[in-house]
């Protein structure tokens, strides 16, 4: 009896859920969370439903001998999970964190060993793909250890990715899964998975939403924020769901909020003459997270919560630094992240500094509500889709909102977002938005992914979506060279927004002569905004609409001059975009992402 396994490979936490697939059941059975055995302390393996996405590269003297043994591996090369996170805070040079954000960062070579980013010399490094692969391998071995009669590779696996992941990041996620020994995998977008989790909990969902409704999914996790719009449509007399817009990848999340709180408290301490060091800031960061949750508890009337940093040495009481997080501090920080802005208030663009420290491209503007305004007014509104309800200003105006991610466990944050959305809808002349009742926001993505797996077997509803961007290949204009000027670049549309999984198409009327035996490279672009370009269409003057991705390259094997080829686009069943060069005689070559080349910014 096969199982469907849903894996939420998160920036800060990963989770795995599964559903058994009985052959004769027509309704989708419910998903169970898989408790992941992991090292939680030296010499202690325990099961937790979340596997923190942290990897620690242990040195010889880091742990007593045998203290990192797992039930399935006496001497693992790396420590993964809770212990990695704990030990990594004490020794950051050996800690890999946010591997997923690095996976989607086009400014670095994602296949070369670069993590831990600030590792001292001599520490073994991993590539972002390898690190992600280690988390996935841990989950596979944990499964095989606990369920020896149900081999992992024989099950159907769904791995979730942010909706905002581009084709390169998806390709690399797939590579990571393959490296981890996965077979039969399908990629699924996280906000969709969150919505499936809601459907799973509400078998009567057809009575809760109606034709023409527009559902906004807001997913704020530890490190990233993601927006998606899902429309409720009708096909053959049945309600169906279609994902109609996807936001940009925003590196902004709950960790930013906690760090901002820790800095606020740190500044208050500094004003009183108490300086804290890096390790104490780490402790303060963790304490501020707990204090924030206490203050945000709707039952709580406390005006402040102590965030004590215990003394470092054996003098516990003597060295204790007293501080407190007040409601005013929290309100001020949350105001920075969730300001009540107008729907035309756009986020500040990243500053372009000539010399920048290479690192993760964190969002320049911390105001999540401004990013949401940009999503609804620019990205979502650009959809030429009669299913998207729009106000007089063109603002995409959702009827329902579904929250996901740990940050939105806080009632205050949910209410602030609802109030901001309602102000916008009111200005457009619409009624207040309805909130779809909250689920277990930490595990919903994994549960929903497992549910989706059963949906593909006809046992539940499926959201139609297709690829969330339009993709282009750069073509240099043939024109006489002008000194000091680059030849203008045109972009050939090769795949349109919404191209469905399991389909392919040939780009008409365009042929290229490729030299056999030498690598040919193509510049590759995408856009989340231009949704109406059709395959074969040539775009000039695209300005800032297009975003350049890692180049694609192909090397034709064989001999004999130049082969005329045309492009073919395939979106696989698993949701991965592929481009092929096809010759007249039917020979085909796949274009591969060349992530080793640094993308010229």
């Amino acid at each position, binding site marked *: 009896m096969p199982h469907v396994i849903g894996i939420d490979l998160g920036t800060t936490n990963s989770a795995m859920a599964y559903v058994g697939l009985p052959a004769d059941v027509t309704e989708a059975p419910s998903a169970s969370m898989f408790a992941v055995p992991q090292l939680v*302390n*030296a*010499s*202690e*393996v*325990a099961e937790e439903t979340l596997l923190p996405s942290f990897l620690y590269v242990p040195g010889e003297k880091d742990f*007593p*001998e*045998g*203290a990192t043994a797992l039930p399935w591996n006496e001497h693992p090369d790396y420590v993964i999970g809770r212990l990695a996170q704990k030990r990594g805070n004490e020794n950051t040079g050996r800690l890999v964190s946010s591997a997923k954000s690095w996976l989607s960062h086009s400014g670095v070579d994602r296949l070369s060993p670069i993590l831990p980013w600030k590792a001292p010399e001599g520490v073994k490094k991993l590539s972002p793909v390898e690190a992600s692969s280690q988390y996935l391998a841990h989950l596979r071995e944990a499964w095989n250890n606990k369920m020896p009669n149900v081999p992992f590779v024989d099950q159907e696996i769904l791995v979730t990715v942010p909706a905002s992941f581009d084709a390169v990041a998806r390709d690399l996620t797939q590579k990571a899964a393959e490296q981890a020994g996965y077979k039969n995998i399908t990629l699924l977008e996280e906000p969709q998975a969150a919505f499936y989790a809601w459907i799973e909990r509400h078998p009567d969902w057809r009575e809760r939403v109606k034709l023409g409704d527009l559902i906004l999914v807001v997913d704020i996790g530890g490190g990233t924020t993601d927006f998606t719009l899902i429309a409720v449509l009708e096909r053959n007399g049945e309600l169906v769901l279609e994902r109609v817009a996807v936001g940009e990848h925003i590196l902004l999340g709950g960790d930013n909020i906690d760090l901002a709180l820790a800095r606020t408290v740190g500044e208050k301490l500094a004003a009183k003459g108490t300086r804290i060091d890096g*390790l104490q800031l780490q402790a303060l960061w963790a*304490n501020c997270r707990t204090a924030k949750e206490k203050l945000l508890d709707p039952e709580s009337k406390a005006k402040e919560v*102590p965030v*004590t940093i*215990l*003394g470092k040495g*054996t*003098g*516990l*009481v*003597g060295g*204790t630094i*007293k501080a407190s997080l007040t409601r005013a501090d929290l309100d001020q920080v949350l105001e920075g992240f969730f300001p009540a802005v107008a729907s035309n208030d756009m986020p500040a663009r990243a500053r372009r500094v000539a010399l920048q420290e290479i690192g993760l491209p964190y969002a320049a503007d911390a105001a999540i509500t401004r990013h949401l305004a940009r999503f609804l007014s620019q990205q979502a509104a650009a959809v030429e889709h009669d299913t998207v309800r729009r106000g007089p200003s063109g603002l995409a105006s959702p009827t329902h909102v579904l929250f996901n991610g740990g940050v939105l466990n806080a009632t205050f944050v949910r209410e602030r977002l609802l109030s901001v959305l309602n102000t916008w809808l009111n200005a457009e002349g619409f009624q207040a938005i309805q909130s779809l009742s909250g689920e277990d926001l930490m595990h919903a993505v994994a549960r929903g992914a497992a549910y989706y797996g059963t949906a593909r077997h006809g046992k539940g509803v499926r959201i139609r979506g297709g690829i969330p961007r339009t993709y282009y290949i750069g073509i240099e204009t043939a024109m006489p060279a002008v000194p000091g000027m680059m030849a203008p670049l045109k972009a050939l549309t090769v795949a349109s927004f919404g191209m469905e999984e399991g389909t392919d198409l040939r780009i008409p009327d365009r042929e290229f002569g490729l030299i056999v035996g030498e690598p040919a490279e193509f510049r590759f672009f995408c856009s989340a905004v231009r949704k109406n370009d059709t395959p074969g269409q040539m775009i000039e003057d695209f300005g800032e609409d297009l975003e350049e991705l890692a180049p694609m390259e192909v090397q034709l094997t064989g001999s004999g001059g130049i082969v005329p080829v045309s492009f073919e686009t395939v979106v696989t069943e698993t949701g991965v975009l592929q481009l092929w060069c096809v010759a007249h005689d039917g020979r085909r070559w796949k274009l591969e992402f060349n992530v080793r080349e640094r993308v010229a910014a």
Partner: protein
Amino acid sequence: MSPELISDLGLAPKPVKPAKPEKPAAPPPPAFKPSDGALQILGIMQRDSRIIDFLMEDISSYEDDQVGAAVRAMQTAARDALVRYVSLAPVIDGVEGTFTKPPSNDPSVVKYLGNVPAAGATGGTLRHRGWRAVSVSLPPLNPKQDMAVIAPAEIEVE
């Protein structure tokens, strides 16, 4: 008899067959001392809540609010660590201050206070509910680890 004398008397000892070299026996299962479990729980409580630091510190010179701030942080952590490994329940699940009949006559389960009749009591006012460890789930001991080290020394490299 000394070897010389044996030799002089012509009484050579029977040559003893050299014992066959035995296969190296599998290492014996690690022997743990009864105190190791106690040291382990001290180590866990110190690691997660720093309670040994607190108990060993001379706190007489600190202001109450300084002590209070440290204890509040420590007590939460100590309780979390304790309940993680030891599941606790009251011996008598009753309301303290109310009349209670004892569930057992075992003196290790119920202790009588006050004017206890010579023949023993059959009930009284519940003063303390008692604690019972319903289950203990400590991680297996690592034979390579020196259990006597409750907390390792810490050296920070600047």
